[in-house]
Protein backbone atom coordinates (compact mmCIF):
# COMPACT_ATOMS: atom_id res chain seq x y z
CA UNK A 1 0.00 0.00 0.00
CA UNK A 2 1.29 3.44 -0.88
CA UNK A 3 1.99 5.83 1.92
CA UNK A 4 -0.99 8.10 2.49
CA UNK A 5 -2.18 10.62 5.00
CA UNK A 6 -4.63 8.11 6.45
CA UNK A 7 -2.75 7.39 9.72
CA UNK A 8 -2.90 11.05 10.61
CA UNK A 9 -6.66 11.21 10.63
CA UNK A 10 -7.07 8.12 12.83
CA UNK A 11 -7.30 10.11 16.11
CA UNK A 12 -9.95 12.32 14.57
CA UNK A 13 -11.83 9.30 13.24
CA UNK A 14 -11.70 7.60 16.62
CA UNK A 15 -13.10 10.69 18.29
CA UNK A 16 -15.82 11.06 15.69
CA UNK A 17 -16.86 7.45 15.95
CA UNK A 18 -16.79 7.39 19.74
CA UNK A 19 -18.41 10.71 20.45
CA UNK A 20 -20.46 11.47 17.41
CA UNK A 21 -21.26 8.49 15.21
CA UNK A 22 -21.96 6.06 18.05
CA UNK A 23 -24.29 8.34 20.04
CA UNK A 24 -25.99 9.31 16.82
CA UNK A 25 -26.54 5.66 15.95
CA UNK A 26 -27.93 5.09 19.44
CA UNK A 27 -30.22 8.07 18.99
CA UNK A 28 -31.49 6.83 15.66
CA UNK A 29 -31.93 3.35 17.08
CA UNK A 30 -33.92 4.70 20.01
CA UNK A 31 -36.31 6.48 17.70
CA UNK A 32 -37.61 3.16 16.39
CA UNK A 33 -38.63 1.82 19.79
CA UNK A 34 -42.41 1.74 19.76
CA UNK A 35 -44.92 0.27 22.22
CA UNK A 36 -44.75 -3.06 20.39
CA UNK A 37 -41.12 -3.52 19.47
CA UNK A 38 -39.31 -1.71 16.69
CA UNK A 39 -41.50 0.35 14.41
CA UNK A 40 -42.01 3.72 12.82
CA UNK A 41 -44.64 4.39 15.47
CA UNK A 42 -42.92 7.52 16.83
CA UNK A 43 -42.45 9.05 13.43
CA UNK A 44 -46.02 8.34 12.47
CA UNK A 45 -47.28 9.84 15.71
CA UNK A 46 -45.07 12.91 15.40
CA UNK A 47 -45.74 13.66 11.77
CA UNK A 48 -49.40 12.68 12.07
CA UNK A 49 -50.06 15.49 14.52
CA UNK A 50 -50.93 18.73 12.78
CA UNK A 51 -49.50 20.68 15.72
CA UNK A 52 -46.07 19.07 15.41
CA UNK A 53 -46.15 19.63 11.72
CA UNK A 54 -46.78 23.31 12.30
CA UNK A 55 -43.94 23.47 14.82
CA UNK A 56 -41.64 22.00 12.19
CA UNK A 57 -42.76 24.62 9.68
CA UNK A 58 -42.40 27.39 12.27
CA UNK A 59 -38.87 26.26 13.07
CA UNK A 60 -37.92 26.43 9.41
CA UNK A 61 -39.68 29.79 9.15
CA UNK A 62 -37.76 31.13 12.12
CA UNK A 63 -34.51 29.99 10.47
CA UNK A 64 -35.44 31.66 7.20
CA UNK A 65 -36.50 34.91 8.86
CA UNK A 66 -33.23 35.00 10.75
CA UNK A 67 -31.35 34.29 7.52
CA UNK A 68 -33.10 37.19 5.79
CA UNK A 69 -32.53 39.67 8.61
CA UNK A 70 -28.91 38.68 9.25
CA UNK A 71 -28.27 38.99 5.52
CA UNK A 72 -29.83 42.45 5.36
CA UNK A 73 -27.67 43.56 8.28
CA UNK A 74 -24.57 41.53 7.52
CA UNK A 75 -24.01 42.41 3.87
CA UNK A 76 -23.68 46.18 4.49
CA UNK A 77 -21.34 45.53 7.41
CA UNK A 78 -19.22 43.21 5.28
CA UNK A 79 -19.13 45.81 2.50
CA UNK A 80 -18.16 48.48 5.00
CA UNK A 81 -15.33 46.19 6.08
CA UNK A 82 -14.28 45.78 2.47
CA UNK A 83 -14.09 49.53 1.95
CA UNK A 84 -12.37 50.28 5.24
CA UNK A 85 -8.74 50.80 6.09
CA UNK A 86 -6.68 48.53 8.27
CA UNK A 87 -7.70 49.98 11.65
CA UNK A 88 -11.38 50.21 10.78
CA UNK A 89 -11.28 46.61 9.61
CA UNK A 90 -9.87 45.47 12.92
CA UNK A 91 -12.53 47.39 14.78
CA UNK A 92 -15.29 45.86 12.67
CA UNK A 93 -13.94 42.35 13.21
CA UNK A 94 -13.64 42.99 16.93
CA UNK A 95 -17.19 44.31 17.22
CA UNK A 96 -18.41 41.37 15.19
CA UNK A 97 -16.70 38.89 17.44
CA UNK A 98 -17.87 40.39 20.74
CA UNK A 99 -21.28 38.71 20.66
CA UNK A 100 -19.54 35.39 20.07
CA UNK A 101 -17.44 35.90 23.17
CA UNK A 102 -20.50 36.41 25.36
CA UNK A 103 -22.46 33.50 26.74
CA UNK A 104 -25.61 32.77 24.81
CA UNK A 105 -27.56 32.73 28.07
CA UNK A 106 -26.30 36.18 29.06
CA UNK A 107 -27.13 37.61 25.64
CA UNK A 108 -30.56 36.08 25.79
CA UNK A 109 -31.31 37.60 29.17
CA UNK A 110 -30.06 40.98 28.00
CA UNK A 111 -32.66 40.75 25.27
CA UNK A 112 -35.40 40.30 27.89
CA UNK A 113 -34.57 43.79 29.10
CA UNK A 114 -34.31 45.23 25.59
CA UNK A 115 -37.58 43.74 24.36
CA UNK A 116 -39.58 44.36 27.53
CA UNK A 117 -42.36 46.83 28.16
CA UNK A 118 -39.90 49.21 29.83
CA UNK A 119 -37.13 48.42 27.40
CA UNK A 120 -35.42 50.87 25.03
CA UNK A 121 -37.38 49.75 21.97
CA UNK A 122 -40.76 50.30 23.55
CA UNK A 123 -39.69 53.58 25.16
CA UNK A 124 -38.24 54.93 21.93
CA UNK A 125 -41.44 54.16 20.06
CA UNK A 126 -43.55 55.82 22.72
CA UNK A 127 -41.25 58.85 22.90
CA UNK A 128 -41.42 59.27 19.12
CA UNK A 129 -45.18 58.97 19.22
CA UNK A 130 -45.08 55.83 17.08
CA UNK A 131 -46.83 53.80 19.77
CA UNK A 132 -49.54 54.93 22.13
CA UNK A 133 -48.51 52.92 25.14
CA UNK A 134 -45.52 50.81 26.12
CA UNK A 135 -45.50 47.40 24.48
CA UNK A 136 -43.51 44.24 24.94
CA UNK A 137 -41.83 42.25 22.20
CA UNK A 138 -41.23 39.37 24.59
CA UNK A 139 -42.96 36.16 23.55
CA UNK A 140 -43.33 37.41 20.01
CA UNK A 141 -41.78 35.98 16.90
CA UNK A 142 -40.52 39.44 15.95
CA UNK A 143 -38.66 39.80 19.25
CA UNK A 144 -37.23 36.34 18.85
CA UNK A 145 -36.00 37.04 15.33
CA UNK A 146 -34.39 40.28 16.54
CA UNK A 147 -32.51 38.48 19.30
CA UNK A 148 -31.53 35.61 16.98
CA UNK A 149 -30.34 38.11 14.44
CA UNK A 150 -27.94 39.73 16.88
CA UNK A 151 -26.72 36.40 18.17
CA UNK A 152 -26.14 34.92 14.71
CA UNK A 153 -24.85 38.01 12.92
CA UNK A 154 -21.18 37.00 13.25
CA UNK A 155 -21.95 33.70 11.57
CA UNK A 156 -22.83 35.51 8.38
CA UNK A 157 -20.36 38.39 8.61
CA UNK A 158 -17.28 36.23 9.06
CA UNK A 159 -17.68 34.12 5.90
CA UNK A 160 -18.59 37.27 3.96
CA UNK A 161 -15.53 39.12 5.20
CA UNK A 162 -13.38 36.11 4.36
CA UNK A 163 -14.67 36.02 0.81
CA UNK A 164 -14.66 39.79 0.28
CA UNK A 165 -11.06 40.12 1.33
CA UNK A 166 -10.21 37.88 -1.61
CA UNK A 167 -12.16 39.93 -4.14
CA UNK A 168 -9.88 42.56 -5.75
CA UNK A 169 -11.39 46.01 -6.29
CA UNK A 170 -10.69 45.76 -10.02
CA UNK A 171 -13.99 43.86 -10.39
CA UNK A 172 -16.01 46.82 -9.20
CA UNK A 173 -13.79 49.17 -11.17
CA UNK A 174 -14.36 47.12 -14.30
CA UNK A 175 -18.09 47.40 -13.72
CA UNK A 176 -17.78 51.12 -13.02
CA UNK A 177 -15.86 51.77 -16.23
CA UNK A 178 -18.43 49.67 -18.10
CA UNK A 179 -21.01 52.20 -16.98
CA UNK A 180 -22.57 50.49 -13.96
CA UNK A 181 -23.93 52.55 -11.07
CA UNK A 182 -23.49 51.59 -7.40
CA UNK A 183 -26.70 49.52 -7.20
CA UNK A 184 -25.98 47.68 -10.40
CA UNK A 185 -22.48 46.90 -9.14
CA UNK A 186 -23.93 45.59 -5.88
CA UNK A 187 -26.53 43.41 -7.58
CA UNK A 188 -24.61 42.18 -10.61
CA UNK A 189 -21.05 41.97 -9.29
CA UNK A 190 -20.68 42.07 -5.52
CA UNK A 191 -23.65 39.99 -4.43
CA UNK A 192 -23.04 37.18 -6.92
CA UNK A 193 -19.39 37.08 -5.93
CA UNK A 194 -20.37 37.06 -2.25
CA UNK A 195 -22.87 34.27 -2.80
CA UNK A 196 -20.58 31.40 -1.76
CA UNK A 197 -19.93 33.25 1.50
CA UNK A 198 -23.62 33.97 1.90
CA UNK A 199 -24.46 30.30 1.40
CA UNK A 200 -21.93 29.29 4.03
CA UNK A 201 -23.34 31.91 6.39
CA UNK A 202 -26.92 30.86 5.69
CA UNK A 203 -26.12 27.26 6.52
CA UNK A 204 -24.52 28.31 9.81
CA UNK A 205 -27.32 30.70 10.73
CA UNK A 206 -30.03 28.21 9.91
CA UNK A 207 -28.38 25.43 11.87
CA UNK A 208 -27.73 27.73 14.81
CA UNK A 209 -31.22 29.26 14.83
CA UNK A 210 -33.17 26.06 14.48
CA UNK A 211 -31.26 24.55 17.41
CA UNK A 212 -30.98 27.48 19.82
CA UNK A 213 -33.11 26.12 22.61
CA UNK A 214 -32.33 28.73 25.25
CA UNK A 215 -33.21 31.79 23.18
CA UNK A 216 -36.29 30.15 21.74
CA UNK A 217 -37.57 29.10 25.14
CA UNK A 218 -36.81 32.32 27.00
CA UNK A 219 -37.72 34.94 24.40
CA UNK A 220 -40.21 32.99 22.33
CA UNK A 221 -42.06 32.00 25.49
CA UNK A 222 -44.55 29.18 25.63
CA UNK A 223 -46.57 30.50 22.74
CA UNK A 224 -43.86 30.18 20.12
CA UNK A 225 -42.92 26.52 20.12
CA UNK A 226 -40.03 25.21 18.05
CA UNK A 227 -38.64 21.74 17.54
CA UNK A 228 -35.88 21.92 20.19
CA UNK A 229 -38.51 22.70 22.84
CA UNK A 230 -40.54 19.71 21.71
CA UNK A 231 -37.46 17.52 22.09
CA UNK A 232 -36.73 18.97 25.50
CA UNK A 233 -40.30 18.39 26.56
CA UNK A 234 -40.21 14.76 25.51
CA UNK A 235 -36.89 14.17 27.27
CA UNK A 236 -37.18 16.28 30.37
CA UNK A 237 -40.89 16.38 31.12
CA UNK A 238 -42.54 13.42 29.50
CA UNK A 239 -39.56 11.02 29.64
CA UNK A 240 -40.55 9.68 26.24
CA UNK A 241 -37.05 9.18 24.88
CA UNK A 242 -37.92 7.22 21.78
CA UNK A 243 -40.26 10.04 20.80
CA UNK A 244 -37.59 12.64 21.57
CA UNK A 245 -35.13 10.68 19.42
CA UNK A 246 -37.61 10.52 16.58
CA UNK A 247 -38.14 14.30 16.71
CA UNK A 248 -34.39 14.84 16.88
CA UNK A 249 -33.92 12.66 13.81
CA UNK A 250 -36.64 14.60 11.98
CA UNK A 251 -34.93 17.89 12.91
CA UNK A 252 -31.57 16.51 11.83
CA UNK A 253 -32.96 15.30 8.53
CA UNK A 254 -34.83 18.48 7.69
CA UNK A 255 -31.84 20.66 8.56
CA UNK A 256 -29.64 18.21 6.70
CA UNK A 257 -31.75 18.37 3.56
CA UNK A 258 -31.53 22.15 3.56
CA UNK A 259 -27.80 21.94 4.12
CA UNK A 260 -27.31 19.53 1.24
CA UNK A 261 -29.46 21.73 -0.96
CA UNK A 262 -27.35 24.79 -0.17
CA UNK A 263 -24.14 22.85 -0.67
CA UNK A 264 -25.39 21.73 -4.06
CA UNK A 265 -26.18 25.30 -5.00
CA UNK A 266 -22.67 26.34 -4.00
CA UNK A 267 -21.28 23.66 -6.29
CA UNK A 268 -22.90 25.40 -9.26
CA UNK A 269 -20.30 26.03 -11.92
CA UNK A 270 -20.79 29.77 -11.74
CA UNK A 271 -20.02 29.80 -8.03
CA UNK A 272 -16.98 27.54 -8.02
CA UNK A 273 -13.60 28.98 -8.71
CA UNK A 274 -13.94 32.49 -7.41
CA UNK A 275 -14.75 31.46 -3.86
Amino acid sequence: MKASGFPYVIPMLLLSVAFFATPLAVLVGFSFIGPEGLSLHNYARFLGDAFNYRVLINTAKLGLQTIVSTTLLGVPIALLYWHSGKTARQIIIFLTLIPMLTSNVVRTFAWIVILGRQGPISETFVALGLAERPFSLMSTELGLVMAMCQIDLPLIILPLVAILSRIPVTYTEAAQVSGAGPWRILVTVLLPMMLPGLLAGWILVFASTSASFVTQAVIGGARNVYVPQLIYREVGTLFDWPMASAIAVVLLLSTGILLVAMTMISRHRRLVGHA
Partner: protein
Amino acid sequence: MPQASNAAEGRELSVRGLTHSYGGQNAISDISFEIKAGEIVALLGPSGCGKSTVLRAIAGLIQPKSGLIQLGGQDLANVSARARGIGMVFQNYALFPHLTVAENIAYPLACQKVARTERRERVEEMLSLVQLKGFGNRLPRELSGGQQQRVAVARAIAGRPSLLLLDEPFGALDRALRFDLQVELLHLQKTLGITTLIVTHDQEEAQSLAGRLVLMNKGNVEQIDTPMAVYDRPKTLFVNTFIGQANVLHGKVDRLEAEATTIALTNGKALVLPRRLNFTTGSTVTITFRPEDVRLSATPSASALPARLTVSVPLGPTLVHDLLLEDGTNLRASEVRGPSTFIPEPGAQLFAEIDTMRCHAFPSEPEAFRE
Protein backbone atom coordinates in the same frame (compact mmCIF):
# COMPACT_ATOMS: atom_id res chain seq x y z
CA MET B 1 -11.02 48.78 -44.01
CA PRO B 2 -12.86 51.21 -41.78
CA GLN B 3 -15.92 49.78 -40.08
CA ALA B 4 -17.75 52.84 -38.97
CA SER B 5 -20.39 50.78 -37.21
CA ASN B 6 -17.91 49.29 -34.80
CA ALA B 7 -16.89 52.25 -32.76
CA ALA B 8 -17.86 55.66 -31.75
CA GLU B 9 -15.46 58.02 -33.47
CA GLY B 10 -12.13 57.82 -31.67
CA ARG B 11 -11.50 61.08 -29.86
CA GLU B 12 -8.33 62.84 -28.96
CA LEU B 13 -7.19 62.76 -25.37
CA SER B 14 -5.37 65.61 -23.74
CA VAL B 15 -3.76 65.41 -20.31
CA ARG B 16 -2.39 68.65 -18.83
CA GLY B 17 -0.47 69.11 -15.59
CA LEU B 18 -1.86 66.01 -13.98
CA THR B 19 -0.70 65.74 -10.35
CA HIS B 20 -1.76 63.29 -7.71
CA SER B 21 -0.45 62.21 -4.36
CA TYR B 22 -1.05 59.36 -1.94
CA GLY B 23 -0.55 60.24 1.69
CA GLY B 24 1.31 63.49 1.04
CA GLN B 25 3.85 61.99 -1.35
CA ASN B 26 3.43 62.88 -4.98
CA ALA B 27 2.78 59.77 -7.05
CA ILE B 28 2.74 61.76 -10.28
CA SER B 29 3.52 65.39 -10.83
CA ASP B 30 2.72 67.63 -13.76
CA ILE B 31 2.08 64.92 -16.33
CA SER B 32 1.13 66.25 -19.76
CA PHE B 33 0.66 64.47 -23.07
CA GLU B 34 -1.79 64.24 -25.92
CA ILE B 35 -3.13 61.40 -27.98
CA LYS B 36 -4.56 62.17 -31.37
CA ALA B 37 -7.84 60.60 -32.39
CA GLY B 38 -7.24 57.02 -33.50
CA GLU B 39 -3.65 56.97 -32.31
CA ILE B 40 -2.03 54.34 -30.07
CA VAL B 41 0.21 55.67 -27.37
CA ALA B 42 2.04 53.66 -24.75
CA LEU B 43 2.72 54.91 -21.26
CA LEU B 44 6.02 53.20 -20.54
CA GLY B 45 8.04 53.08 -17.37
CA PRO B 46 9.32 50.81 -14.61
CA SER B 47 6.89 49.59 -11.97
CA GLY B 48 6.03 52.26 -9.45
CA CYS B 49 6.69 55.12 -11.87
CA GLY B 50 3.08 56.33 -11.60
CA LYS B 51 1.82 55.21 -14.97
CA SER B 52 -1.09 53.25 -13.47
CA THR B 53 -2.08 56.33 -11.49
CA VAL B 54 -2.28 58.31 -14.72
CA LEU B 55 -4.42 55.59 -16.29
CA ARG B 56 -6.76 55.42 -13.31
CA ALA B 57 -7.15 59.19 -13.31
CA ILE B 58 -8.11 59.11 -16.98
CA ALA B 59 -10.59 56.29 -16.34
CA GLY B 60 -12.09 58.32 -13.49
CA LEU B 61 -11.27 55.71 -10.86
CA ILE B 62 -9.33 58.29 -8.85
CA GLN B 63 -9.84 62.01 -8.49
CA PRO B 64 -6.48 63.68 -9.28
CA LYS B 65 -5.32 66.49 -7.03
CA SER B 66 -4.91 68.85 -9.94
CA GLY B 67 -4.64 68.83 -13.69
CA LEU B 68 -6.91 68.75 -16.68
CA ILE B 69 -8.11 65.72 -18.61
CA GLN B 70 -9.99 66.34 -21.82
CA LEU B 71 -11.51 63.76 -24.10
CA GLY B 72 -12.66 65.07 -27.47
CA GLY B 73 -12.45 68.57 -26.07
CA GLN B 74 -14.71 67.77 -23.09
CA ASP B 75 -13.33 68.34 -19.60
CA LEU B 76 -13.72 65.08 -17.66
CA ALA B 77 -13.26 66.61 -14.20
CA ASN B 78 -16.93 66.38 -13.34
CA VAL B 79 -17.73 63.26 -15.34
CA SER B 80 -17.98 60.08 -13.29
CA ALA B 81 -16.15 56.94 -14.34
CA ARG B 82 -19.37 55.29 -15.49
CA ALA B 83 -20.27 58.20 -17.76
CA ARG B 84 -16.92 58.73 -19.47
CA GLY B 85 -17.53 56.25 -22.26
CA ILE B 86 -14.12 54.70 -21.86
CA GLY B 87 -13.27 51.06 -22.40
CA MET B 88 -10.65 49.50 -20.17
CA VAL B 89 -8.73 46.24 -20.10
CA PHE B 90 -7.49 45.51 -16.59
CA GLN B 91 -4.20 43.96 -15.69
CA ASN B 92 -5.69 40.60 -14.72
CA TYR B 93 -8.67 41.26 -17.00
CA ALA B 94 -11.15 41.46 -14.08
CA LEU B 95 -13.60 39.28 -15.99
CA PHE B 96 -16.64 38.62 -13.80
CA PRO B 97 -16.11 35.00 -12.78
CA HIS B 98 -19.80 34.26 -12.31
CA LEU B 99 -20.79 35.52 -15.76
CA THR B 100 -20.27 33.69 -19.03
CA VAL B 101 -18.10 35.11 -21.78
CA ALA B 102 -21.19 36.45 -23.55
CA GLU B 103 -22.55 37.99 -20.36
CA ASN B 104 -19.22 39.60 -19.63
CA ILE B 105 -19.11 41.16 -23.09
CA ALA B 106 -22.73 42.25 -22.80
CA TYR B 107 -22.10 43.92 -19.43
CA PRO B 108 -21.37 47.45 -20.71
CA LEU B 109 -24.28 47.08 -23.14
CA ALA B 110 -26.63 46.20 -20.30
CA CYS B 111 -25.39 49.28 -18.45
CA GLN B 112 -26.17 51.35 -21.50
CA LYS B 113 -29.67 49.82 -21.54
CA VAL B 114 -29.18 48.45 -25.03
CA ALA B 115 -32.17 46.34 -26.13
CA ARG B 116 -31.80 42.60 -25.64
CA THR B 117 -31.79 41.58 -29.30
CA GLU B 118 -29.34 44.28 -30.22
CA ARG B 119 -27.19 43.26 -27.31
CA ARG B 120 -27.08 39.66 -28.52
CA GLU B 121 -26.10 40.77 -32.01
CA ARG B 122 -23.36 42.99 -30.69
CA VAL B 123 -21.98 40.19 -28.49
CA GLU B 124 -21.89 37.84 -31.49
CA GLU B 125 -20.13 40.54 -33.48
CA MET B 126 -17.56 41.04 -30.70
CA LEU B 127 -17.00 37.30 -30.34
CA SER B 128 -16.19 36.94 -34.01
CA LEU B 129 -14.06 40.06 -33.90
CA VAL B 130 -11.83 38.52 -31.20
CA GLN B 131 -12.10 35.06 -32.81
CA LEU B 132 -13.98 33.45 -29.96
CA LYS B 133 -17.12 32.41 -31.82
CA GLY B 134 -18.80 29.55 -29.99
CA PHE B 135 -17.19 30.41 -26.67
CA GLY B 136 -20.07 32.61 -25.51
CA ASN B 137 -21.39 30.14 -22.94
CA ARG B 138 -18.06 29.34 -21.34
CA LEU B 139 -17.09 30.80 -18.00
CA PRO B 140 -13.88 32.85 -17.87
CA ARG B 141 -12.04 30.22 -15.81
CA GLU B 142 -12.74 27.68 -18.55
CA LEU B 143 -10.67 29.73 -21.00
CA SER B 144 -6.93 29.97 -21.53
CA GLY B 145 -5.07 33.14 -20.56
CA GLY B 146 -4.98 34.39 -24.13
CA GLN B 147 -8.68 33.75 -24.61
CA GLN B 148 -9.45 35.57 -21.38
CA GLN B 149 -7.42 38.51 -22.58
CA ARG B 150 -9.42 38.63 -25.80
CA VAL B 151 -12.68 38.52 -23.86
CA ALA B 152 -11.44 41.43 -21.78
CA VAL B 153 -10.70 43.38 -24.96
CA ALA B 154 -14.10 42.49 -26.38
CA ARG B 155 -15.82 43.66 -23.20
CA ALA B 156 -13.84 46.91 -23.25
CA ILE B 157 -14.82 47.78 -26.82
CA ALA B 158 -18.36 46.35 -26.87
CA GLY B 159 -19.82 49.59 -25.58
CA ARG B 160 -18.27 51.58 -28.49
CA PRO B 161 -15.98 53.65 -26.28
CA SER B 162 -14.20 56.69 -27.67
CA LEU B 163 -11.04 55.78 -25.76
CA LEU B 164 -9.54 52.39 -24.95
CA LEU B 165 -7.26 52.01 -21.95
CA LEU B 166 -5.14 48.91 -21.49
CA ASP B 167 -3.34 48.24 -18.22
CA GLU B 168 -0.46 45.80 -18.78
CA PRO B 169 -2.74 43.83 -21.10
CA PHE B 170 -0.19 41.14 -21.95
CA GLY B 171 1.62 40.96 -18.62
CA ALA B 172 0.04 37.68 -17.57
CA LEU B 173 0.71 35.86 -20.82
CA ASP B 174 3.73 33.86 -21.86
CA ARG B 175 6.08 35.39 -24.38
CA ALA B 176 5.17 33.24 -27.37
CA LEU B 177 1.49 34.12 -27.09
CA ARG B 178 2.15 37.77 -26.40
CA PHE B 179 3.37 38.68 -29.85
CA ASP B 180 0.42 37.05 -31.65
CA LEU B 181 -2.04 38.85 -29.44
CA GLN B 182 -0.22 42.14 -29.85
CA VAL B 183 -0.48 41.89 -33.60
CA GLU B 184 -4.12 40.95 -33.26
CA LEU B 185 -4.79 43.95 -31.02
CA LEU B 186 -2.98 46.25 -33.39
CA HIS B 187 -5.08 44.99 -36.25
CA LEU B 188 -8.25 45.42 -34.22
CA GLN B 189 -7.33 48.92 -33.21
CA LYS B 190 -6.60 49.92 -36.77
CA THR B 191 -9.92 48.44 -37.87
CA LEU B 192 -11.87 50.27 -35.23
CA GLY B 193 -9.87 53.47 -35.29
CA ILE B 194 -10.22 53.81 -31.57
CA THR B 195 -7.92 56.09 -29.60
CA THR B 196 -5.83 53.80 -27.41
CA LEU B 197 -3.58 54.22 -24.40
CA ILE B 198 -1.53 51.24 -23.24
CA VAL B 199 0.23 51.19 -19.92
CA THR B 200 3.15 48.82 -19.78
CA HIS B 201 6.56 48.30 -18.29
CA ASP B 202 7.60 46.14 -21.23
CA GLN B 203 9.49 48.25 -23.78
CA GLU B 204 9.19 45.70 -26.55
CA GLU B 205 5.44 45.61 -26.09
CA ALA B 206 5.30 49.39 -26.15
CA GLN B 207 7.50 49.61 -29.19
CA SER B 208 5.60 47.00 -31.15
CA LEU B 209 2.19 48.50 -30.43
CA ALA B 210 2.45 52.23 -30.03
CA GLY B 211 3.03 54.99 -32.52
CA ARG B 212 4.40 57.14 -29.74
CA LEU B 213 5.77 56.41 -26.32
CA VAL B 214 5.32 58.46 -23.17
CA LEU B 215 8.25 57.52 -20.98
CA MET B 216 7.72 57.97 -17.27
CA ASN B 217 10.05 57.72 -14.33
CA LYS B 218 9.39 58.51 -10.68
CA GLY B 219 6.15 60.30 -11.42
CA ASN B 220 7.53 62.49 -14.19
CA VAL B 221 7.41 62.36 -17.97
CA GLU B 222 10.96 61.91 -19.28
CA GLN B 223 10.34 61.93 -23.00
CA ILE B 224 7.50 61.70 -25.50
CA ASP B 225 8.48 60.45 -28.93
CA THR B 226 8.25 57.70 -31.50
CA PRO B 227 9.86 54.38 -30.56
CA MET B 228 12.75 54.96 -32.97
CA ALA B 229 13.44 58.49 -31.80
CA VAL B 230 13.35 57.36 -28.18
CA TYR B 231 15.91 54.69 -28.97
CA ASP B 232 18.15 56.81 -31.15
CA ARG B 233 17.87 60.17 -29.43
CA PRO B 234 17.16 59.62 -25.75
CA LYS B 235 16.71 62.89 -23.95
CA THR B 236 17.74 61.63 -20.55
CA LEU B 237 20.07 59.05 -19.13
CA PHE B 238 17.05 57.21 -17.73
CA VAL B 239 15.45 56.90 -21.15
CA ASN B 240 18.76 55.82 -22.63
CA THR B 241 19.27 53.03 -20.13
CA PHE B 242 15.61 52.02 -19.87
CA ILE B 243 15.05 51.64 -23.60
CA GLY B 244 17.30 49.02 -25.09
CA GLN B 245 20.71 48.26 -23.63
CA ALA B 246 23.38 50.85 -23.00
CA ASN B 247 26.99 50.85 -21.93
CA VAL B 248 27.78 53.55 -19.41
CA LEU B 249 31.17 55.17 -18.87
CA HIS B 250 31.92 58.02 -16.48
CA GLY B 251 34.37 60.82 -17.12
CA LYS B 252 35.18 64.50 -17.14
CA VAL B 253 35.13 67.01 -19.99
CA ASP B 254 38.79 67.56 -20.65
CA ARG B 255 39.00 69.71 -23.74
CA LEU B 256 36.41 71.47 -25.88
CA GLU B 257 37.11 72.16 -29.55
CA ALA B 258 34.94 73.37 -32.40
CA GLU B 259 34.20 69.91 -33.76
CA ALA B 260 35.42 67.64 -30.99
CA THR B 261 35.23 67.04 -27.23
CA THR B 262 37.79 65.03 -25.34
CA ILE B 263 36.47 63.12 -22.34
CA ALA B 264 38.92 61.90 -19.71
CA LEU B 265 37.42 58.62 -18.54
CA THR B 266 37.73 57.58 -14.90
CA ASN B 267 39.77 54.61 -15.98
CA GLY B 268 42.50 56.90 -17.29
CA LYS B 269 41.70 56.46 -20.97
CA ALA B 270 40.39 59.24 -23.16
CA LEU B 271 37.46 59.29 -25.54
CA VAL B 272 37.13 61.84 -28.28
CA LEU B 273 33.62 62.64 -29.45
CA PRO B 274 33.46 64.19 -32.91
CA ARG B 275 31.25 67.16 -31.86
CA ARG B 276 31.25 69.99 -29.40
CA LEU B 277 29.29 69.12 -26.26
CA ASN B 278 27.23 71.66 -24.45
CA PHE B 279 29.25 71.31 -21.21
CA THR B 280 31.88 73.41 -19.59
CA THR B 281 35.38 72.02 -19.20
CA GLY B 282 35.75 70.04 -16.03
CA SER B 283 32.11 68.99 -15.65
CA THR B 284 31.59 65.33 -14.96
CA VAL B 285 29.63 63.52 -17.62
CA THR B 286 28.17 60.10 -18.30
CA ILE B 287 28.84 58.70 -21.74
CA THR B 288 26.51 56.05 -23.14
CA PHE B 289 26.52 53.93 -26.25
CA ARG B 290 24.65 50.89 -27.51
CA PRO B 291 26.27 47.42 -27.65
CA GLU B 292 25.95 47.45 -31.42
CA ASP B 293 28.13 50.58 -31.50
CA VAL B 294 31.06 48.64 -30.10
CA ARG B 295 33.43 46.80 -32.44
CA LEU B 296 35.88 44.27 -31.07
CA SER B 297 39.24 43.49 -32.48
CA ALA B 298 42.17 41.35 -31.40
CA THR B 299 44.76 44.03 -32.08
CA PRO B 300 45.20 47.26 -30.12
CA SER B 301 44.73 50.71 -31.61
CA ALA B 302 45.04 54.27 -30.27
CA SER B 303 41.34 54.85 -29.60
CA ALA B 304 40.40 51.31 -28.51
CA LEU B 305 39.84 50.33 -24.89
CA PRO B 306 41.47 47.09 -23.76
CA ALA B 307 38.94 44.60 -22.39
CA ARG B 308 38.82 40.95 -21.36
CA LEU B 309 35.98 38.75 -22.59
CA THR B 310 33.75 37.24 -19.90
CA VAL B 311 31.25 35.35 -22.01
CA SER B 312 29.72 35.31 -25.48
CA VAL B 313 26.04 34.51 -25.92
CA PRO B 314 24.40 33.89 -29.27
CA LEU B 315 20.91 35.46 -29.32
CA GLY B 316 19.34 34.38 -32.56
CA PRO B 317 21.00 36.32 -35.33
CA THR B 318 23.21 38.37 -33.04
CA LEU B 319 26.12 37.52 -30.84
CA VAL B 320 26.38 39.34 -27.51
CA HIS B 321 29.75 39.65 -25.79
CA ASP B 322 30.13 40.60 -22.17
CA LEU B 323 33.47 42.18 -21.37
CA LEU B 324 35.32 43.63 -18.43
CA LEU B 325 37.36 46.82 -18.81
CA GLU B 326 40.65 47.14 -16.97
CA ASP B 327 39.06 49.04 -14.08
CA GLY B 328 36.30 46.44 -13.72
CA THR B 329 33.55 48.34 -15.61
CA ASN B 330 31.17 46.13 -17.58
CA LEU B 331 31.01 46.54 -21.30
CA ARG B 332 28.62 44.86 -23.69
CA ALA B 333 29.12 44.51 -27.41
CA SER B 334 26.93 42.88 -30.03
CA GLU B 335 27.41 41.98 -33.66
CA VAL B 336 25.38 40.33 -36.34
CA ARG B 337 26.43 36.73 -36.60
CA GLY B 338 27.56 35.43 -39.95
CA PRO B 339 28.86 32.02 -41.00
CA SER B 340 32.43 33.19 -40.63
CA THR B 341 32.05 35.15 -37.39
CA PHE B 342 34.96 34.43 -35.11
CA ILE B 343 33.93 33.53 -31.54
CA PRO B 344 36.77 34.33 -29.15
CA GLU B 345 37.43 32.18 -26.06
CA PRO B 346 36.30 33.57 -22.69
CA GLY B 347 39.22 35.30 -21.02
CA ALA B 348 40.65 36.50 -24.32
CA GLN B 349 42.23 39.94 -24.37
CA LEU B 350 40.34 42.12 -26.85
CA PHE B 351 40.18 45.78 -27.81
CA ALA B 352 36.89 47.65 -27.98
CA GLU B 353 36.47 50.35 -30.56
CA ILE B 354 33.52 52.64 -29.76
CA ASP B 355 31.58 54.40 -32.50
CA THR B 356 31.97 57.87 -31.02
CA MET B 357 29.52 59.32 -33.53
CA ARG B 358 26.74 57.57 -31.75
CA CYS B 359 27.74 58.22 -28.16
CA HIS B 360 25.43 60.19 -25.93
CA ALA B 361 26.62 62.40 -23.13
CA PHE B 362 24.57 63.22 -20.01
CA PRO B 363 25.46 65.23 -16.97
CA SER B 364 26.51 62.98 -14.10
CA GLU B 365 25.05 64.97 -11.23
CA PRO B 366 21.88 63.72 -9.64
CA GLU B 367 18.83 65.01 -11.49
CA ALA B 368 17.90 67.47 -8.76
CA PHE B 369 21.05 69.49 -9.44
CA ARG B 370 20.48 69.76 -13.11
CA GLU B 371 17.48 72.05 -12.90
